[in-house]
C-alpha cells in the first residue's frame, strides 16, 4: 500500500454555485502523495464538478485548492498539465480524427519544445529528433496499455473500451504527478473492468502516479482505494477508509435512498437556495 506521504492536493472549503444551484458546498479533503483516492456519491452529487474545479474547467465560487502547498487557482487551465495534473473524461473526449498515436503525442505537448517554425522546417532546427525521441516514450505507454494494434487508427472509430484506454494513455503521456480519472470503468464489461483495474494499480506502482478517481462500481472502489470520500448534494458526508465509509449510516442511506435526517436537511437547504 502507499506510504500515505505528504499532502499533494488540498481542497479547502470549496463551494461552487451556478446561479441558484449549489453544486458544491464547503468541500474539504486532501489527496496524499502516492495514494489512490476515490470520490464517490450518487448521480448529481457534484463529483465531476469537483474534478472540474481541480482540472480548471470550473472556478470555485469560494474556497481554495492547494497544489503542493501552493495556490492552484491562480494557474490557467493549460498550465495545469505542466504542474503535473492530468485527467480523463467521463464522456470520452478524444481527438476523433487523429490517430491514436497522435492523440497520445498531444499529451506530450507541454514537454516538447518544437514550434510551428521548427516544425515546418522539420529536418532543420531539431523537430525531427525531438519528435522521434518522444515516440520512444509514447511507445512504452502503448505497450503498457496493450493498444499496439490500433496505434495508427483514428481514435474516433475505435470501440468504447479501447477509446477509454486511449484516453488513459493520453493522460499518462502528460506524466502527471496526480491523475484524475472520471469513471474509468463506466460502461465496461467485467473483463474490461479487470484490465482497467490492473492498469490503474500499475499507474501507481510502475509510474509512481497519485490517483484520484470517481467510480460507481463499489467493488472496484473498495478493492482499489486507499481512502474514499463520499459526496451527496455537494457536501462531503463521509471520508476515510473504504470499509469504514461504506459502513457509515449516511452513506448507506444516500445510496439506498432511505429517509435520513442529515440528507433531508441537505436537500431542503438546496431547495431553498434554488427557490
Amino acid at each position, binding site marked *: 500500500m502507499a506510504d500515505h506521504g505528504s499532502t499533494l492536493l488540498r481542497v479547502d472549503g470549496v463551494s461552487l454555485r451556478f446561479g441558484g444551484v449549489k453544486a458544491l458546498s464547503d468541500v474539504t479533503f486532501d489527496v496524499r502523495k502516492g495514494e489512490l483516492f476515490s470520490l464517490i456519491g450518487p448521480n448529481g452529487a457534484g463529483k465531476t464538478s469537483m474534478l472540474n474545479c481541480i482540472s480548471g474547467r470550473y472556478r470555485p465560487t469560494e474556497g481554495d485548492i492547494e497544489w503542493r502547498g501552493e495556490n492552484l487557482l491562480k494557474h490557467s487551465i493549460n498550465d495545469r498539465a505542466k504542474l503535473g495534473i492530468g485527467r480523463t*473524461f467521463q464522456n470520452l473526449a478524444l481527438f476523433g480524427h487523429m490517430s491514436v498515436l497522435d492523440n497520445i503525442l498531444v499529451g*506530450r505537448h507541454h514537454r516538447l519544445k*518544437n514550434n510551428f517554425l521548427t516544425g515546418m522546417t522539420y529536418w532543420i532546427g531539431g523537430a525531427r529528433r525531438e519528435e522521434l525521441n518522444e515516440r520512444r516514450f509514447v511507445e512504452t505507454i502503448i505497450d503498457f496499455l496493450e493498444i499496439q494494434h490500433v496505434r495508427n487508427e483514428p481514435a474516433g472509430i475505435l470501440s468504447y473500451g479501447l477509446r477509454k484506454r486511449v484516453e488513459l494513455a493520453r493522460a499518462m503521456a502528460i506524466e502527471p504527478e496526480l491523475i484524475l480519472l472520471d469513471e474509468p470503468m463506466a460502461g465496461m464489461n467485467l473483463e474490461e473492468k479487470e484490465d482497467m483495474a490492473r492498469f490503474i494499480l500499475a499507474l501507481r506502482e510502475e509510474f509512481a502516479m497519485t490517483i484520484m478517481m470517481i467510480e460507481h462500481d463499489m467493488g472496484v472502489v473498495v478493492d482499489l482505494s486507499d481512502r474514499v470520500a463520499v459526496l451527496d448534494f455537494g457536501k462531503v458526508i463521509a471520508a476515510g477508509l473504504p470499509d469504514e465509509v461504506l459502513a457509515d449510516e449516511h452513506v448507506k442511506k444516500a445510496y439506498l435512498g432511505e429517509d435520513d435526517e442529515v440528507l433531508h436537511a441537505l436537500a431542503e437547504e438546496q431547495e431553498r437556495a434554488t427557490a
Partner: protein
Amino acid sequence: MAHVPNPRPTGDFRVSYAADRTLFKTRNETYFVIAGVLLVALAPLFFGGYVLSQLILIGIYAIAALGLNVLTGMTGQISLGHGAFFGFGAFASAWIASRGIPVMFAIPLAGVMTMAVGMVFGIPAARLKGLYLAIATLASQYILEDFFARADWFTGGTYGSLAETASFFGYQLDSDASYLYLVLFWVIVSFVGVANLARTRDGRALVAVRDHYLSAEIMGINLTKYRILSFGISSFFAGIGGALYGHYLGFVSGEGFTILLSIEFLAMIIIGGLGSVSGSLLGAAFILLLPQAMEIFANAVATVVPAIAQGTAYIKQMSVGAAIILFLVLEPEGLVHRWRLMRASWKLYPFSH
C-alpha cells in the same frame, strides 16, 4: 470524416520510428509526387503560354487555399476574409518592392506582413466560434477592402499599384515559363512546410483544438494562442499567394479581392478536402479548371443544338454551379476522399476490405 483504410504493401515493415513518420507513406507515393513536380518543371518545353499560365494560377491559388486549409480544415475556424488577406499580400509585396527591395525578398516579407495583419484580425477567434467567427472575419474582409480603396500611400487607392517584375540574380522572370519555376518553388516550400507542421507539435495542437478544445486545454494547449496562431499561418500563405499573384500580373488593383474570392477559396478546400494538404492543390485546380471545362462543354452543346448558341455564357455559368452542387452532394468529403477510396480499392483488390 469517414475512415478509409490505407494498408501498406505486404513486406513493407517499418523498423525505425523515422521510417514510420515519413512525409509520404509509401515509396510509390514518393515517386508519384516527384514525377508530378518533374512534369510541371518540364512543362515549358511542351506547352505554350496558356497551359503555363493555368499552371501558375493553380499554384498561386493552391498556396492560398493551403493557408485557408490550415485555418478551416486543421483548426476548424471558418474565415470569410481569406480573399482580402490574399489581396493584402499582393499590395504589400508591390509596396515593399517599390521601396527598392528585390522581389525575391519582398514576397516572403509580404507573407510575414500579412501574417501580422491576419493575427490582429484573428484576435476575435479567441472568443468566437463557428458562425459568429465567420461573421467576425467577414468584417475583416470589408475593413481590408476599404483599406485597399483608401490607403493611397500603400495600395495606390482606386488606381491600384504596379508590381515590379520578379528577377533572379539579374535574370528577369518576365515570361510564363520562368515565372512558373518561382511559383513551383513556393508551392513546394508551402506544401512541404504544412505537411511537416501536421506531423509535429504545433500542427497536432491545431487539430486538437478543432476536434475537442476542452480536452486540448487540459492537455496543456493554450487555446487563445493556437487559435490566433492558426490565423497567422493561414494569412502567411495567403500573403505569399497574393504576392506571387501581384508580381505575375504586374499590376495590383483592389477590385479582385472581394468576398467572392474568399468564398472561392472556401470552395477550393471543401471540394479538395478539408484538413488535407494535397486536397488544397486538387481543389484549387478543380475550381480554376471547371469553368474552362464547362465552356468547352457549353460550346459542344451549342454545336449540336444551334438554337442555344447565344446562351453559351449562361450555360457555362449554370454548369459550374451545377457541378459544384453535384460534387458536394455526391462527394462531401472532397476529391482527396475520392482518391483515397480509389487507392484503397485497387490496393485491396479483389477484396473489399
